[in-house]
């Protein structure tokens, strides 16, 4: 008799344990946690650590006339202004910056549901919080912040995020502007240990159509440091009340790419058509191939040791 009771208790406990386990659904989506090393091959020029594109290098960007004009009056010295030293570090920097990503979930402990994904591992940048709990975006009248406001949903196991309420910033590291009306949709698509982020930037002020960018990352066992040191405003000696800029028609770098790389002006100044294959027909007779790499410094020509293997 005792033996039967014991068996019954064990069975009941086992079934209860299984039911309890089944009552706690797995969180939605797939695992994104970990350290993702940047593999900056897709945009080696734009994402180049410590560098980035040339001052007037707008090819492939669907700029409208306003965006182009604003880009051409930009001087890189603006980043020495206390008011603008942090301009680049909007959420769009995930697409144009050089860094790897440290990603982790913020979970609701009773149910295990993910209330947010956090992306850290950035220099000069506060972590991005991707709210997954269904909260709405703020009112269109709400203040815009450097960090913007980002929500996310899973679509077919791809994390799709939507960012609004950003401050005006840049979409290329040579001052091509983004307005405070810009939004970013980003798709985090994991395949095995490769993560590809596809960013779509919409900006009714400076772009004629969505601007798509992709970056790929490789999962690494070497942890990226999640600590961040947000961009700090410092005095770099720029005279108060002065905004470094070039007057219209006076940007000294406007023909730099033509001289260095033989790229015709109509390509250098960008526009949606410059991103399409058929644009090559327009420049076939005017492009002059440089005989050798002419990048300065010469290290930016690449070569062995430029991209160390990851662990």
């Amino acid at each position, binding site marked *: 008799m005792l033996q039967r009771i014991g068996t019954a208790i064990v069975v009941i406990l086992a079934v209860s344990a299984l039911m309890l386990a089944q009552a706690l659904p797995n969180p939605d989506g797939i695992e994104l946690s970990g350290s993702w090393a940047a593999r900056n091959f897709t945009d080696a020029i734009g994402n180049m650590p410590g560098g980035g594109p040339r001052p007037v290098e707008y090819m492939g960007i669907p700029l409208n006339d306003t965006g182009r004009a604003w880009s051409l009056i930009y001087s890189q010295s603006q980043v020495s202004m206390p008011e603008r030293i942090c301009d680049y570090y909007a959420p769009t920097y995930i697409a144009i910056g050089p860094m790897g990503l440290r990603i982790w979930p913020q979970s609701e402990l009773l149910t295990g549901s993910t209330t947010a994904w956090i992306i850290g591992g950035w220099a000069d940048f506060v972590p991005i919080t991707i709210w997954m709990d269904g909260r709405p975006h703020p009112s269109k009248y709400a203040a815009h912040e450097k960090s913007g406001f980002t929500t996310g949903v899973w679509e077919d196991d791809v994390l799709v995020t939507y960012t609004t309420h950003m401050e005006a910033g840049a979409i290329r590291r040579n001052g091509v502007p983004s307005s405070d009306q810009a939004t970013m949709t980003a798709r985090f698509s994991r395949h095995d240990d490769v993560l590809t982020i596809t960013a779509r930037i919409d900006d009714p002020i400076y772009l004629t159509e969505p601007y798509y960018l992709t970056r790929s990352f490789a999962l690494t066992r070497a942890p990226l440091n999640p600590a961040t040191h947000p961009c700090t405003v410092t005095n770099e000696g720029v005279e108060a009340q002065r905004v470094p800029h070039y007057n219209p028609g006076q940007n000294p770098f406007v023909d730099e*790419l033509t001289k260095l790389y033989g790229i015709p002006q109509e390509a250098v100044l960008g526009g949606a058509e410059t991103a399409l294959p058929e644009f090559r027909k327009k420049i076939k007779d005017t492009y002059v191939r440089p005989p050798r790499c002419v990048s300065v410094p010469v290290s930016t020509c690449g070569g062995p040791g430029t991209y160390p293997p990851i662990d």
Partner: protein
Amino acid sequence: MKYLGAAGLVIALLAMHGEGQGQGRGNQPPPSARAAASFDPAGYWSSLVTQNWRLRMVPPGKGDYIGIPISAAGKKAADAWDQTKDEAAGNQCRAYGAPGLMNLPTHLHITWQDDNSLRVDSDYGTQTRVFHFGSWTPPQPRKRSWQGNSIAVWASRRGGRGGPPSARYLRITTTDLLAGYLRKNGVPYAENASLLEYVDLFKEPNGAAVVVWTAVVDDPVNLETPYIISSQFKKQPDGSAWDPTPCSAGW
């Protein structure tokens, strides 16, 4: 011990029951790749060259290796690259092989060749890739080509069993390649390089669609680390922009 045996039996039965819920329908044959497709990429697509423009849209100068984890051996070979020799030898297509093709400025025409074969034509260099699903095996004897032999599967983002079904992406493995170039200035890959590709299709709320093609090229001879690169294509309403052009070593 007897208790544990009884409990184990119950757990096993429940586990089998749960697993069965996540499976397909009995002994029916698996659906064709076309029927099982998570998305249908058929149609015309156009490269969107918004990144690395001067390295992709126009042939860069010799020695411009930025963006490729080139090894010392690869650099030595690339430094010796000679466009006129390639042209004289009829090797104008060396930069149009599968490891580099999708990153070139091209239109794609994607069609189902049959229910288990997806065909991708590029107008740039008039190349054809065929992705074979199912139990296809390369014809014997194996023959190398610019596009090699490709086997594709609809892969799940989830490993293991259980949980809700996961939408899938296209995973393509390509072998039997001829040695070629990753870039039009002679950055080489060897014939034994491996090529693994992942393809996603994203639909926008306004009906637009974008294909993102991520490639992982591993070549221990010419590369210091795997070369991971993604390319994007925008869906076209028709083939009006389709413009077949032959391979060119210089343009």
